[in-house]
């Protein structure tokens, strides 16, 4: 602060320090008009942010779907070309063994085996029906060998890595007029595709989940009250076993405790102070009594005990969680089981406290010194049940541990543990 007391300064300070002048009447109107305008702009910005998040998730999901669909479309084109060429071959039987069409068809079918084996790698890679060497084929009946690639005599590495499960062909075999067995390979291919589709959900999926939440308490004597959590996650399957997920979750923590309070007054402010100072969150609350138009604070200090209130203090904290988690599938059939674990950033979005007596809310306020950003770790089990080609019902018991105290107050060391059984629906893209 300045210490100089120049006479010009002194004159102006004395005359103008408490100077008052009524602003023009339009000033207040302008102020509230401007506040309205800014409030609308803020809301629009907020909606735009939400829209941007939603658009990002949709874009990621679409990109995932497109990437997996591209493979499917390629495979479809190969099949159609192969079908067309073999049909032509059947229509012109004289070309017989000299015809290049069949080997071409077989060669075209080869990428299909690669694509399909990639897509079906959650189980066994399946050998595709493909053409044997054209020279061995008694045209026009197309005997296509069950090894890939055609003509080379060598199995494709990805197919060899599988369990050598082969496609049943009995239903698709026919005998032609000359007594040779004819085989409907297109039906086989379609069967193969359909079978694969059942077991092969896409790499990208979106999951909605919700759960009741149970939290540890900051001190003995307090009890948890109803809370819930839930959110939306986008997942990407890295391989057969591992899936990574991220998204947005909402989680809530409630606690209530009976505490003795005293009232004291300082400079016109009424303080509500716990009788016993303790290192817990309920000694760190600012409260306001709307019923009596007073402000009350608790600051953990013992005061005059003549006026003691026994009140039920309830505290509620809400967090927006941005998780990054991984799931390791132990097995995956119709029912799947996996281990999940990850870390999350938790942003404080709600902080409320209230004192109630006989069910009547006497005061409300907030807990002081809460950290705005918290980090947590989580672990759990994920049970899945396939509801169809794309939907899976999941039940996931999960434990979440906050990695540091939710309060910045040195006296309060409360790292809550939360437990929830999340029930969710997962939608997988092609």
């Amino acid at each position: 602060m300045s210490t100089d007391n120049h006479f010009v300064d002194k004159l102006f300070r004395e005359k103008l320090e408490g100077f008052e002048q009524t602003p023009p009447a339009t000033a207040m109107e302008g102020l509230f008009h401007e506040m309205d305008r800014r409030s609308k702009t803020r809301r629009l910005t907020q909606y735009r942010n939400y829209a941007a998040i939603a658009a990002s998730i949709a874009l990621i999901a679409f990109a995932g779907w497109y990437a997996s669909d591209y493979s499917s479309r390629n495979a479809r084109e190969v099949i159609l070309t192969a079908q067309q060429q073999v049909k032509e071959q059947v229509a012109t039987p004289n070309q017989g063994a000299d015809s290049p069409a069949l080997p071409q068809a077989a060669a075209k079918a080869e990428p299909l085996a690669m694509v399909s084996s990639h897509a079906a790698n959650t189980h066994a890679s399946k050998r595709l029906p493909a053409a044997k060497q054209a020279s061995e084929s008694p045209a026009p009946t197309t005997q296509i060998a069950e090894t890939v690639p055609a003509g080379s005599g060598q199995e494709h590495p990805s197919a060899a890595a599988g369990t050598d499960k082969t496609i049943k062909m009995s239903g698709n075999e026919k005998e032609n007029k000359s007594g040779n067995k004819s085989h409907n390979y297109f039906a086989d291919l379609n069967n193969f595709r359909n079978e694969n589709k059942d077991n092969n959900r896409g790499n990208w999926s979106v999951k909605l989940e919700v759960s009741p939440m149970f939290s540890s308490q900051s001190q003995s004597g307090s009890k948890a009250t109803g809370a819930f959590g839930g959110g939306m996650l986008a997942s990407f399957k890295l391989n057969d076993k591992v899936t990574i997920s991220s998204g947005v979750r909402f989680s809530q923590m409630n606690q209530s405790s009976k505490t003795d309070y005293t009232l004291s007054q300082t400079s016109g402010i009424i303080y509500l102070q716990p009788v016993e100072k303790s290192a817990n969150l309920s000694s760190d609350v600012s409260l306001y009594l709307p019923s009596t138009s007073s402000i009350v604070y608790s600051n953990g200090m013992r005061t005059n005990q003549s006026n003691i209130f026994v009140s039920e203090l309830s505290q509620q904290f809400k967090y927006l969680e941005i998780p990054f988690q991984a799931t390791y599938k132990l097995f995956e059939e119709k029912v799947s089981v996996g281990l999940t674990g990850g870390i999350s950033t938790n942003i404080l979005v709600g902080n409320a406290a209230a004192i109630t007596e006989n069910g009547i809310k006497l005061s409300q306020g907030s807990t002081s010194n809460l950290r705005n950003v918290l980090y947590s770790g989580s672990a759990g089990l994920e049970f899945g049940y396939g509801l169809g080609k794309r939907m899976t019902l999941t039940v996931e018991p999960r434990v979440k541990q906050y990695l540091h105290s939710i309060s910045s107050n040195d006296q309060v060391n409360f790292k809550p543990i939360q437990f929830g059984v999340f029930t969710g629906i997962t939608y997988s893209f092609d």
Partner: protein
Amino acid sequence: MVRIFQPFIEEWSVLPGNLERRRTRVGLHTRSEFRTLISYSVVTQLEEIIYKCRKGNSGAQTALYNLFASKMYGVCLRYARDKDEAQDILQEGFIRVFLKMDQYEFKGSFEGWMRKIMVNAALERFRKNDKLYPVEEIRVYESAEWADETTSAIDAADLMKMIQELPPRYKMVFNLYAIEGYSHQEIGELMNISEGTCKSNLSRARAILQKKVEEQYGIEDLKLKKVL
């Protein structure tokens, strides 16, 4: 302290059921004792307004504006070149007050807290519009202190006009130093200027103001109290 509910409390012959239950639980012996306690719960009208403003209550915001607009407009006028600019600063300041209401911790005077916000709003406006002004030739007067009888006749509105007519930088430095009580170092940091520049601007501002006062009020050497 305005005790809004005090008259009602005094008139109570029987406490309402809720408070009666509370009284017995609290263990107070007499109703009057309890009434006294409850009367402590009644806080100033301002504090109630502040809490309602925090919840976005527009009635409370209007009440707060009505309580402080004149005082804050007086502050804004010192930092502005005219009434229109002062109104703009006042508007920006009040918007910030409403938005930052949660940050007021009931420590120190609320008026002082508001005043600081107004000054910051003026400073921000100054930073945005800070332009280089030609430095006018100023004759630095001898430092002479005016007699009290002379200064008592000087009108505050005239002084306000004189301040408003100062070049923006001089006006800002003079206001912050002479009236708000900031140090040269603090002003230098706020305005992003060196301490030396700050001192020089203050000296020039004083000289201009001294000249204007003496010209307007015809202060002669005879009325000088002393010459330093």
